[in-house]
């Protein structure tokens, strides 16, 4: 085994996109971690241990992971519900994710917000709100602060195909384009917005054409090829960093699960799902690594094993944690006052 792997490695083609071998292992880790974490969360959801809804990115992990991996630590991103992978790459911990889904006191939002709606200004990702499109102007503002302070930092913003229909998306991307802000917009085209096909969201043949309407460059690539996603994002990010302004990237992928776990997705053709299952980004990466030998099977098996134990431990820990104390609900509406008065009849 090892010897065979080694010999393959010897014959390995060069690694693309200027990546090092350890980075390929890291990418593999993030991809697998995203999927495993979501799978185990699905079990918890079935057991009723996830309080709200559960959103999957099954089959879309590569676009989140590959793109986020192109950022530097000081850069910022804002994920949407299917961009768990991007948050993990940016430093969100599995324990935080599980706590958040379970509404635990120690969750990053102290039980105030659900699923992956949280952020970290130190690590460089911003907590989304549900209202689609709203993060685009907000991230434009963060990018504006980079430009004003002449900091070599970039913002990466994720939107879905459906979110491109919102007024906020339009106002935000147009604002960023005019100001030539260091920003990259990723349109994650997974074919569906809830039960709505992309043709019902927009009349453009391809969403990348929206770039033309904002006077910015755009590129459309295979979102299920993690290395391609990394490479194209990296290029756009460094261009933005160099003062080249906004780029729109359309990443082609597919939403293999329903809108959320409750959704039986009856409207999605079985064959369509099957076709994309055959195009699974992690399987493809596995095959690529098999063929090139860049990362041996043994190494990958070890990564998966590590993830298993890691995530199981995290869940075990989170499960036994308490919900937040009721009165903490009164904290932090304002900086001043730091805690609002309880309603008078709650004193009693």
């Amino acid at each position, binding site marked *: 085994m090892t010897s065979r792997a080694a010999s393959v490695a010897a014959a390995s083609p060069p690694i693309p996109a200027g990546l090092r071998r350890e980075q390929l292992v890291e990418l593999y880790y993030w991809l697998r971690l995203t999927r495993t974490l979501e799978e185990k969360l699905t079990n918890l959801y079935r057991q009723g241990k996830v*309080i709200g809804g559960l959103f999957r990115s099954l089959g879309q992990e590569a676009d989140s992971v590959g793109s986020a991996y192109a950022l530097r630590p000081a850069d910022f991103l804002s994920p949407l519900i299917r961009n768990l992978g991007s948050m993990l790459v940016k430093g969100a911990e599995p324990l935080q994710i599980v706590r958040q889904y379970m509404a635990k006191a120690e969750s990053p939002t102290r*039980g105030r*917000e659900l699923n992956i709606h949280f952020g970290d200004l130190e690590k460089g990702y911003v907590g989304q709100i*549900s209202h689609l499109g709203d993060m685009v102007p907000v991230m434009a503002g963060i990018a504006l602060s980079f430009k004003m302070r002449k900091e070599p930092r970039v913002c990466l913003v994720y939107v879905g195909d459906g979110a491109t229909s919102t*007024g906020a998306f339009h106002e935000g991307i147009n604002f960023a384009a005019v100001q030539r802000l260091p920003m990259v917009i990723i349109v994650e085209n997974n074919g569906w917005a809830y*039960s709505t096909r992309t043709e019902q969201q927009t009349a453009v043949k391809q969403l990348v054409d929206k770039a033309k309407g904002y006077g910015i460059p755009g590129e459309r690539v295979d979102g299920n090829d993690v290395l391609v996603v990394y490479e194209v994002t990296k290029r756009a990010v460094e261009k933005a960093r160099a003062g080249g302004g906004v780029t729109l990237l359309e990443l082609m992928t597919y939403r293999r699960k329903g809108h959320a776990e409750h959704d039986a997705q009856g409207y999605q053709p079985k064959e369509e799902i099957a076709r994309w299952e055959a195009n699974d980004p992690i399987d493809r990466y596995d095959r690529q690594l098999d063929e090139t030998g860049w990362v041996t099977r043994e190494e990958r098996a070890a990564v998966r094993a590590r993830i298993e134990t890691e995530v199981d431990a995290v869940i075990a820990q989170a499960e036994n944690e308490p919900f937040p104390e*009721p009165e903490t609900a*009164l904290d932090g509406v304002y900086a001043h006052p730091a805690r609002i008065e309880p*309603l008078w*009849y709650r004193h009693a």
Partner: protein
Amino acid sequence: MPEITYLEALREGLREEMRRDERVFILGEDVGTYGGAFKVTEGFIEEFGKNRIVDTPIAEAAIVGAAAGAAHMGLRPVAEMQFIDFISCAYDMLTNYVATARYRAGLPTPMVVRGPCGGYVRGGPFHSQNPEAAFLHTPGLKIVCPATARDAKGLIKAAIRDDDPVLYFEHKYLYRRIKETLPEDEDIVTPIGKARIAREGRDLSIITWSAMVWKALEAAERLEREDGVSVEVLDLRTLLPMDDEAILATVRKTNKVLIAHEDTRTGGVAGEITARINERAFEWLDGPVLRVTAADVPLPYAPTLEDYVLPQTEDLVQVARKLAAY
């Protein structure tokens, strides 16, 4: 006649109006093939076709604006907000365009904007909102909030038939929890602007609407049982225009008023009701008008937090006791 849920009653009301009047059509996100996020319009596209069940892009301002345009031309659009929380994206269109259309330009704008509101469902800050206070303050709009299956049906039918723009806020907590047997032969239409006495009482009035009506009834029973206090529960049903007569009648009858709403306290609808009572029935009050509401915070997700922030039956009982003893 089988029992039907609040949600089914709403669906029936919509379907009956669409059968009765071909000018009625529905537009919104995922309302077609999917039948809406909560399946309110399930089966509609099959019965009424793509022309009258319009799946739209994710664009609330466009949905509301397009409904207004169609209404000007004599159609009767019913626009769905997938969650009512997203009506905020159409706030400008509703308050500046729709609400003023008749007044400034004589434009008929008979339209309904409806969607699931309310908490107690662990929906977090953006899937639990109660937007009535945000629109109470807009002349030109009407606002209805059904609490019962009968009114879910009766108010949607009345809203569709009304010649003014109506916001119809349906409470998602009630969707499948409330059941009622409704006569199938009757054309149930709940008049807009008329409140309903949900329970007769003598000692104290609880004025409320939507899901809180059920908590008020629970509280009333406990107070009757445990304290022998007779509580009247007034279900406003319509918030705009407000049924002043019904409000004043219950004040004159019990002389003590508790106003309960699920929404946050400051700037909530209770303030307006208090002012009206104060102006017109001050002499009739044997005690202060008291409010039971949510705390002034965005609604948190964790059960412990949501339960703490939202008004509970226990709160109504506590405050009612204080008021009764006043």
